[in-house]
């Protein structure tokens, strides 16, 4: 066995030991419960065994998440309950937008032209076209965050959370531009034509260029990579598996053990691609995703047209409740925090994940790919999330208790008007979840390789753990899964935004030079 796989096993051994220490009191409590149960002589059938196993896994998982949340969601100002990371994301996105002089607005048209392929030179280094890079990044971000996450935001933050989601979506565009441009600048193009890039690389190399000593730069890269691995198990995996299972349960009814069965089926299907190497399944899924997005938005538009009379009221409700929210949603700060958390969870701007996919684009102009990446948060949050939000609000699902929460609330909202739509929604949910899991397994693996090396053994250890988390996600409860997923994905922004701000002057210089050449019509147009 190679030293790298030993290191991977050692790393996870430590994690399990730490986890075990946390779980000891719970295990003891369960032991004593068992004694009581035995005394009362109750025989357990298979169903309750299944249930109690799911519950105990979920409870143990909840304890780990609770302890991590105390550190990662630390609120620096006691009077204002905003977690530090939400503050960093908010200020970071605003900084990039002002620093790059509102590029999200002035660069929008040019970004669309690039994505259309006007400047695509097939001989440029890289793996995929600008459009394909955007599709790839979107297949990771458009997922249950857009369908279920929005419902969660409205459920916990009220309708006003939508405004903050949209706002952070718009500001996040420039954060995404900054990180994807950096990923292009510092990517490595291997002699076989494949590309290796992402925040861990630009943090390590870029920070050293700015005068930071190697250990500091490497620490930034390592911290990012660690959270990215966590993110690939959380939002990129468990949240998707959890909500896809929830959708199946909603469709088939609450059959005992269905979460185990469906979780295993999902893990098997993902395993076919990431371990079995059957790329055809992944290729087909990736190509269907834009179509599914189109169908989803179209169905949303149909519902809004049918309910056109309620739309102005919904808009007023959203605007009014973003500044004068009800106490039930945690006041103004509660709404703001929920909006930002769900928006960033959905579009991943500032988080740095998409930079790994965008680094694969065929171009020798880093700024150009950054501009394409900028469209991601717009499509993801400003278009798709807003669509979901409006449907949830005009249908009245958000204040109907029987609508449920998460993906169930969204399904209820759509089925109110289009009774046949839940079937299509369930297919979308499955495909979005599936493609998000495959894309995120790539992000996580890149981060894993950064720490443990590229050997076959190291890689296979990651892939097996990834599949295990799919099953865990299917059986755990939504609250714990959301908390863990948020913790990991949002925490990636710590090193990424801080590093991104330090490296922003480099991006600014490149942008200035690019924009001058663009305005002077110096670029070759290929269509």
């Amino acid at each position, binding site marked *: 066995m*190679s*030293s*790298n796989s030993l*290191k991977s096993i050692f790393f996870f051994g430590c994690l399990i030991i730490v986890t075990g220490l946390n779980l000891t009191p719970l295990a003891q409590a369960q032991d004593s419960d068992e004694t009581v149960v035995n005394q009362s002589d109750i025989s357990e059938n298979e169903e309750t065994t299944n249930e109690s196993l799911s519950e105990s896994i979920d409870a143990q998982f909840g304890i780990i998440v609770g302890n991590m949340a105390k550190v990662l969601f630390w609120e620096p100002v006691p009077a204002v309950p905003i977690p530090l990371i939400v503050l960093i994301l908010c200020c970071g996105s605003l900084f990039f937008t002002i620093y790059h002089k509102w590029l999200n607005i002035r660069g929008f048209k040019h970004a669309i032209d690039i994505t259309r392929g006007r400047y695509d030179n097939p001989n440029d280094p890289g*793996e*995929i*076209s600008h459009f*394909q*890079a955007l*599709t*790839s990044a979107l297949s990771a971000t458009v997922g249950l965050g857009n369908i279920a996450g929005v419902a969660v935001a409205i459920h916990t933050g009220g309708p006003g959370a939508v405004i903050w989601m949209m706002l952070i979506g718009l500001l996040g565009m420039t954060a995404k531009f900054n990180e994807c441009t950096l990923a292009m600048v510092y990517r490595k193009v291997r*002699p*076989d*034509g*494949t*590309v290796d890039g992402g925040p861990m690389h630009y943090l390590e190399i870029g920070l050293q260029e700015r005068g930071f000593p*190697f*250990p500091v730069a*490497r620490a930034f890269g390592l911290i990012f990579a660690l959270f990215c691995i966590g993110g690939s198990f959380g939002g990129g995996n468990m949240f998707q598996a959890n909500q896809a299972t929830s959708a199946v349960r909603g469709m088939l009814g609450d059959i005992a053990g269905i979460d185990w069965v469906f979780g295993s089926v999902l893990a098997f299907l993902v395993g076919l*691609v*990431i371990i079995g*190497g*059957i*790329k055809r399944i*992944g*290729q087909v899924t*990736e*190509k269907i995703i834009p179509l599914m997005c189109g169908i989803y938005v179209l169905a949303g538009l149909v519902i809004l047209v049918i309910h056109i009379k309620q739309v102005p009221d919904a808009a007023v409700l959203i605007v009014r409740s973003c500044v004068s929210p009800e106490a039930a949603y945690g006041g103004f700060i509660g709404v703001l925090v929920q909006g930002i958390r769900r928006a960033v969870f959905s579009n991943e701007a500032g988080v740095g994940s998409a930079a790994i*996919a965008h680094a*694969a684009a065929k171009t020798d102009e880093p700024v150009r790919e950054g501009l394409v990446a900028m469209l991601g948060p717009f499509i993801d949050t400003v278009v798709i999330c807003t669509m979901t939000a409006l449907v949830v609000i005009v249908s009245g699902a958000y204040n109907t208790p029987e609508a449920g929460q998460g993906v169930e609330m969204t399904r209820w909202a759509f089925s109110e008007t289009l009774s046949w739509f839940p079937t299509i929604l369930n297919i979308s949910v499955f495909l979005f979840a599936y493609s998000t899991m*495959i*894309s995120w*397994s*790539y992000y996580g*693996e890149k981060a894993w390789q950064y*720490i*443990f*090396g*590229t*050997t*076959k053994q190291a*890689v296979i250890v990651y892939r097996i753990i990834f599949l295990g988390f799919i099953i865990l996600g299917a059986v755990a409860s939504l609250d714990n899964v959301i908390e863990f997923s948020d913790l990991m994905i949002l925490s990636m922004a710590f090193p990424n935004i801080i590093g991104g701000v330090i490296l922003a002057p480099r991006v600014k210089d490149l942008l200035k030079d690019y924009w001058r050449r663009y305005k002077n019509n110096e670029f070759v147009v290929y269509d």
Partner: protein
Amino acid sequence: MALHVSTVVVPIDFSIASADAIETALEIIDSPSQLHLIHVMLPLETMSPGVLLGDITDVSRTEKVTTALKKLAYDQGADGAHLAVTVGTPGLEIADYAKRHEADLILIPSHGYHGMKRLFLGSVAERVLRHAPCRVLVLRRTDNE
């Protein structure tokens, strides 16, 4: 005792050190036809954007690497050297190739990473040493990596 070799394998990772290794190998052998340059590619990641959406395959990768190997051999005055591209774990593939071609010597540059990099990245040279069927000459790094 003089070192008599008729077949030398030089693993190539396209670093400056690889070019230096070719130069050293040419000092040992009589003709470039005794030289085997091998590059080991990592296994294709089936979930990478280039595979799912682009046109990256093992065939396309092999073509690109072969072209790069040809250019490197030409630039280093080793035109006529045997070129090989394989997929797998570098250390094992190199040792296996040397076995199949009954090589007398593997000449490999060491990047000589220290500290954190050494701890995490390990060493291809080390693995070649452990598995090689013949003598191995490890060249010390000359740069400041």
